[in-house]
């Protein structure tokens, strides 16, 4: 295993483990039932206080930069390997699904914001409310999620030198 491959495996495995842990934290209480791990979410949750806000934003920026740097280490010097039509389709499908998911979530955010504005008691909450509830109820897992997502996006959007 070369140094570059090792960096790749460690980075991707860390992201995968982080996402698995987060999935466990999110879904296990629903599967297990009972009142353990229940979140108390209220409508119109306030944004975090100034101190924690700065911490969250800092974590996002630092991990975005770290992911970006790892992209530089993994793919320098740049080399585009030609791929078969089948593989190219697979890549296109994965990337399309990813962006489509993001678009759907943003659309839902818009609908939720509109509905709660029209009807204060609407149960179709915008994602912002859920995220703020999650941050309030589970701050450290939220920091881990912010860091993981930022690192991955920073890694993906690294622009290789020509």
């Amino acid at each position, binding site marked *: 295993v070369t140094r570059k491959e090792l960096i790749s495996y460690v980075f991707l495995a860390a*992201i995968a483990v982080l996402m698995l842990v987060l999935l466990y934290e999110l879904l296990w209480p629903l599967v297990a039932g009972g009142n353990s791990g229940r979140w108390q979410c*209220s409508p119109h949750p306030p944004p975090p206080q100034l101190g924690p806000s700065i911490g969250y934003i800092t974590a996002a920026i630092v991990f975005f930069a770290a992911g970006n740097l790892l992209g530089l280490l993994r793919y320098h010097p740049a080399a585009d390997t030609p791929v078969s039509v089948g593989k190219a389709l697979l890549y296109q499908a*994965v990337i399309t699904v990813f962006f489509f998911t993001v678009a759907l979530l943003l659309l839902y955010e818009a609908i939720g914001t509109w509905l709660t504005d029209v009807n204060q008691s609407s149960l179709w909450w915008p994602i912002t409310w*859920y995220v703020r*509830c999650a941050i309030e109820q589970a701050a450290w897992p939220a920091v881990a*999620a912010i860091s993981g*997502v930022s690192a991955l996006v920073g890694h*993906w959007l690294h622009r290789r030198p020509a």
Partner: protein
Amino acid sequence: VSLPSLDIGFTEGRPELEPQVAARLLLSIPVTVLLAVALLDIFLEAKKWPSISQRLQTWTSDHPLLAAGLVAVLGALVGHFLFWQFK
């Protein structure tokens, strides 16, 4: 506003999914997608095929403005979700 009734554990056709349950389910969607992409990237790396990251980076190099737009969206969302507001 009239909403379509959903029949997945709700009562009387009205969407009464508890917010804390909805929050967990909703947040698990992007986490699942990122987990799947990370696992797929590990598989591609092991097969010595160009990774998803590599393909995306090529796309980023070809479309720097679109990539900048994506980063702007991410930054705006993070700021919107997480940043303190003046009262």
